[in-house]
């Protein structure tokens, strides 16, 4: 690309710069973990539990170990003596949050391979390493586990029963976390409200389901006592930390790289046992080890998500003004809870959404069951609570005979109240303040995209007269994005004068290499080709956090800016020395520094980098240390608040229950868009995942804790034919919290579709008084409303 792409006013930020990531991916030259082949590499495979809850009596790996082509085999006994479990608290919650939200948290550690009992279908009980994956899987067949079935805790409610067995005996309970918080008078306010509605809402279990399953390759170098780990992960620095901890190595001697990663969406957002085990195996065996998760393993074993039950009461007046809101909810966390109470923490912080509500009280139990561990997936607690809240708002409208849009407008925080103090504490420990935005405008625009409210209602009425059922569904949300604690970046000027940027972010398709280059090119006033970006490599940034929670654009840009500011200072000091002028007379221009108003007085970054070198002949002024390089950490003051209004028109076929989505609209505000095309792609991709969750995808368990949907034949992913016409409108309200006015947008799209579709179907089936208070929305469920009347 050339300078023509630069915006006259500002540069690259705000331009749909083509992705630098595309070329290798399109030519088939990408490097995913599965593509790696190292000399002498051997292949790991895991034996996984067929039972949800079982006591391990014995696991005999002798025959497997003796098989030709097998180089290593281990049971839980072998692993447990060698390696500690993964600390249950991979994410540390800040004291400020624990002080302001009532918490009682007991997170179990996760054994890498247990030797006492198995707690979900898919949990590993043994592993084999062999010359090929084919042989390794043959050898798994020779492992004889002696398992004694235990009573399964098939779901959250049964795990809470008085006589339920304990999943983790040492905890003394099946609840990993109790959370409680309150605003205003809380539930007590319910006594004085004119109208109250109570309902139960169930948000089912589905998952990130990236097209690339997980995978790990590790290689240990004896001479330097160094481990290289390549993992398909969103958090290379967490993997480095956990591998180093488990193996008793300094973090510096473990390098973790996430090469091309084929989607993550949260499912690769924490450390898994295999990350550590494969690293350990490489050191034990002294050969590179590769493990590639297959799809069946992924569905059984990679984190699931959602799976919440909400009991909500909403109190309101005759005008539809919401006066009080309470909820009590359960999160089915599965057997372990690798990101702690993070999902539930998000839910309690996001329930009030874009509305001004004086009184709110919520409590939550994160329940341990014999299901696959539950971890954040795109939205992470917001789709679940949004479903409960936005269904409730529609119920208020129905009760009062008001339009659901009208009830929303009456309760929304007006733009003149920004910034708005919510009266709750965010997960980062900071009191919540919505920083900017215009919520009613977003909803108005969403309705306009569908022709306007009046026209929609008119059409609906006319259709009904013809026996056709058309419905409007709405869903609004706010989303805290760009959460801390920090992100790291290193910025250098290379001796060649090129700008080198490394950030702790770990993209999985978002286009970070492109957008970080956009930031840096503008900060340095260089053509974007002069910026080289490295991500997802602990060897390039000392401390990093990773790409989860819609955070990288906000936090990495902050870190790149801090590091750049420091290098700028040195560049100016050295240039002033060389040009014998005052720093105040200098400006960045034309890939270097020049004297303002004097075109000939200019030094390139290459000149300045040469002058900055240590040694003879340097041209640094006194007190300026050698080198043009800085590593900085951005610690955001708190989150930036993205938000959206969603609206959709659906038609329900009363013969079959089929739901046809005529159009789906999201008006989304993520502040300044760095690359509008990529931003648009993020939101649309998220919407389709949300629609998959609303209508197709389900990780279904039977009442014995067996997963029933273990392949893509049963777990239905949306295809191109399932996608309705999508319209995404970007409303750009700059965030006042950071230099670029940016907010996060990775997750937003996936938040609203489940409730929007449920609301739309209920609206279409108003004549049948339909209420859909659970997901997924099923044709059979819909058809049942017609049979009822």
């Amino acid at each position: 690309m050339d300078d023509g792409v630069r915006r006259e006013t500002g540069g690259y930020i705000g331009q749909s710069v083509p992705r630098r990531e595309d070329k290798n991916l399109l030519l088939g030259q990408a490097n995913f973990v599965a593509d790696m082949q190292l000399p002498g590499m051997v292949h790991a495979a895991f034996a996984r539990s067929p039972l949800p809850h079982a006591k391990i009596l014995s696991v005999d790996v002798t025959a497997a170990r003796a098989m030709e082509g097998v180089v290593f085999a281990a049971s839980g006994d072998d692993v447990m003596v060698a390696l500690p479990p993964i600390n249950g608290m991979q994410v540390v919650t800040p004291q400020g949050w624990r002080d302001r939200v009532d918490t009682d948290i007991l997170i179990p550690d996760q054994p890498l391979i247990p030797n006492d009992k198995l707690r979900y279908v898919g949990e590993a009980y043994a592993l084999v390493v062999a010359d090929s994956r084919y042989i390794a899987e043959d050898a798994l067949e020779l492992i004889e586990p002696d398992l004694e079935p235990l009573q399964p805790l098939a779901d959250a409610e049964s795990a809470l029963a008085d006589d339920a067995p304990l999943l983790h005996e040492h905890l003394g309970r099946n609840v990993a976390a109790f959370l409680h918080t309150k605003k205003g008078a809380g539930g007590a306010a319910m006594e004085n409200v004119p109208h109250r509605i109570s309902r139960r809402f169930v948000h089912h279990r589905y998952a990130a389901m990236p097209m690339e399953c997980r995978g790990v390759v590790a290689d240990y170098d004896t001479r330097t006592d160094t481990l290289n780990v390549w993992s398909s992960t969103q958090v290379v620095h967490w993997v480095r930390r956990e591998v180093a901890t488990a193996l008793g190595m300094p973090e510096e001697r473990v390098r973790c790289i996430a090469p091309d990663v084929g989607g993550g969406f949260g499912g690769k957002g924490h450390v898994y046992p295999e990350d550590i085990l494969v690293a350990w195996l490489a050191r034990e065996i002294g050969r590179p080890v590769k493990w590639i998760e297959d799809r069946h393993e992924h569905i059984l074993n990679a984190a699931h998500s959602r799976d919440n039950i909400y009991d909500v009461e909403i109190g309101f007046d005759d005008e539809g003004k919401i006066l009080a809101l309470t909820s009590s909810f359960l999160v089915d966390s599965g057997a372990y809870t690798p990101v702690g109470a993070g999902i539930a923490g998000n839910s309690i912080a996001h329930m009030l959404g874009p509305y001004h509500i004086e009184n709110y009280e919520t409590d939550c139990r994160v329940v341990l069951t014999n299901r696959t561990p539950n971890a954040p997936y795109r939205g992470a607690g917001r789709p679940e609570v949004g479903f409960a809240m936005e269904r409730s708002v529609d119920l208020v409208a129905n009760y009062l005979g008001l339009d659901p849009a009208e009830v929303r407008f009456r309760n929304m925080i007006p733009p003149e109240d920004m910034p708005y103090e919510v009266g709750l504490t965010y997960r980062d420990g900071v009191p919540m303040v919505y920083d900017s935005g215009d919520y009613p405008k977003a909803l108005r625009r969403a309705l306009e995209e569908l022709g306007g409210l009046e026209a929609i209602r008119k059409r609906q009425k006319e259709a009904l007269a013809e026996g056709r059922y058309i419905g409007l569904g709405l869903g609004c949300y706010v989303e805290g994005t760009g959460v801390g604690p920090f992100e790291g970046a290193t910025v250098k000027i290379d001796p060649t004068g090129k700008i080198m940027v490394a950030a702790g972010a770990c993209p999985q398709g978002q286009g970070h290499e492109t957008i970080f280059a956009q930031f840096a090119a503008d900060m340095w006033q260089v053509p974007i080709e002069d910026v080289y970006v490295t991500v997802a490599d602990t060897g390039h940034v000392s401390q990093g956090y990773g790409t989860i929670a819609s955070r990288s654009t906000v936090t990495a840009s902050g870190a790149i800016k801090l590091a750049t500011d420091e290098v700028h200072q040195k560049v100016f000091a050295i240039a002033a020395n060389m040009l014998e002028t005052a720093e105040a007379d200098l400006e960045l221009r034309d890939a270097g520094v020049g004297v303002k108003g004097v075109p000939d007085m200019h030094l390139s970054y290459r000149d300045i980098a040469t002058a900055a070198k240590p040694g003879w002949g340097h041209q640094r002024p006194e007190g300026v240390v050698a080198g043009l390089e800085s590593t900085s950490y951005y610690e955001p003051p708190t989150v930036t608040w993205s938000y959206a209004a969603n609206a959709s028109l659906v038609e329900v076929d009363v013969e079959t229950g089929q739901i046809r989505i005529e159009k789906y609209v999201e008006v989304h505000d993520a502040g300044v868009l760095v690359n509008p095309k990529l931003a648009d792609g993020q939101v649309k991709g998220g919407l389709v995942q949300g629609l998959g969750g609303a209508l197709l995808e389900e990780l279904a368990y039977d009442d014995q804790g067996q997963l029933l949907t273990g392949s893509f034949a049963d777990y239905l992913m949306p295809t191109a034919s399932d996608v309705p016409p999508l319209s995404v409108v970007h409303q750009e309200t700059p965030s006042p919290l950071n230099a670029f006015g940016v907010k996060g947008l990775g997750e937003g799209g996936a938040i609203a579709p489940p409730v929007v579709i449920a609301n739309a179907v209920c609206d279409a089936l108003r004549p049948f008084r339909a209420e859909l208070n659970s997901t997924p929305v099923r044709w059979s469920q819909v058809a049942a409303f017609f049979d009822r009347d």
Partner: protein
Amino acid sequence: MTDTRKITVTVNGERLTGAAEPRMLLVDFLRDELRRTGTHVGCEHGVCGACTVIIDGDAARSCLMFAVQADGAEISTIEGLAANGEMHPLQKLFSEHHALQCGFCTPGMLMTAMDLVHNSKDHSPEAIRTGMSAALCRCTGYVGIIEAVTEYARQVHGDAAVADRDSGENSHG
């Protein structure tokens, strides 16, 4: 286990020979034996389409076929699309329309689209959407993919071929 056969295939015009057990999947043979890793494995049960390649002229799942079944076959993969250092028009369109994010499904998408555009007679919006449903993408919501494939069909077959026959339908996007 050591019962391997010598398999010869022509991959993107290049004649290649390798050893495969009778049970070895074609996709594993391509990736691990011939080191052509552009073709991906997403599910190993024929649903996701990431492993789609063109075998003797037709798109096929290389995870549902044994390498021994492909002995002597002509196979086209993602690595063969670009020529003389120039991206294939379809590859360029994928980039222009932001039809890829993580890029993991892209090999299967490109080969599915090549088959659809060159082997199928119907290139209406509905046919393209149905045809591209043979492969799963988790990132893009298919928006850019459908745009790119439609544009490619237009380039190959002309405007009329991709016209919406049911004018009442909204264009997707």
